[in-house]
């Protein structure tokens, strides 16, 4: 597991209050029982943590936890670039 993935899990667990074990790449937001406010707060927390921006235009394409992690990893790599 990458350091980014680990941090994303920390943030999702803290905000959504779901079990860490369910956060597999294929887990959907329904699996996490996350409502739309949870999701916005997760996005904002990730942005603050990694110093990136995740606009809704991109976030709307996320289908599962794996999409989340890949996106953040790509943006963090871009930033280090």
């Amino acid at each position: 597991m990458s350091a980014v993935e680990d941090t994303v899990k920390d943030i999702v667990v803290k905000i959504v209050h779901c079990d860490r074990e369910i956060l597999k790449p294929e887990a959907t937001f329904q699996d996490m029982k996350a409502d739309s406010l949870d999701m916005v707060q997760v996005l904002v927390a990730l942005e603050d943590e990694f110093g990136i921006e995740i606009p809704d235009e991109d976030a709307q394409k996320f289908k599962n936890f794996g999409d989340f992690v890949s996106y953040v990893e790509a943006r963090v790599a871009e930033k280090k670039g």
Partner: protein
Amino acid sequence: MLKGKVALVTGSSRGIGKAIALKLAGEGADVIVNYFRRREAAEETAREIEALGVTSQVIRANVGDPEKVDEMFDTISGSFGRLDILVNNAASGLPRSALELDAKVWEWTMDINARALLLCAQHAARLMGKRGGKIVSISSLGSSFVLPKYTAIGVSKATLEALTRYLAIELASRDICVNAVAASLVPTASGMLYASGGEQEMPAPPPTPPAGRLVSAEDIAGVVAFLCSEAAFMIRGQTITIDGGTSLAPFSLE
């Protein structure tokens, strides 16, 4: 006309905020587009503003976060060094009844819809200085009337209107005019999503106001622009209802 004035419209990437931003720009003001989640839409709004021959700047900030509000006004201070008009439009909320609300949703809604006016007005008053200025907030009929699953938003809008009255008096001697407008349902993307319970497109058309059509974002922008004009100088602390008569005629005559 607003030539030479600098206006900030919070939440102006789309919907009512965008219509207000374009209206003020059309009257000659330079307009700062604040957004939180939709960068592409905000940048498109800024392009449309600049096409009207005025300056625009896009600033990202969650107005529910005091630190982000501070940063936004630091940016405005650095770029423009002044502010003449604050339109407090940004709003958020989830379709929940009182018994479905938890503390997190309540605080989120109150922070963005009500506390943001306080924090933005404090900064705005400082940047308006001795020239005075205009502060206009966007409320809704839910501040005075009970709408389904609108509890936290309705209460936040009532707070917004009460704060508008306090600010109007406390800032009156600085020539800062503080007012609000309260609209009935406006068929923007957010308005329709809310009216449908937050999950889907509106299942049935909402009731038509006595005026014969739904209120548009442009209807609201027109009244906001009036409240930002010198003609409205003696209007202080008022909330102007824009609802095509809906609130006066809850029962159909037919």
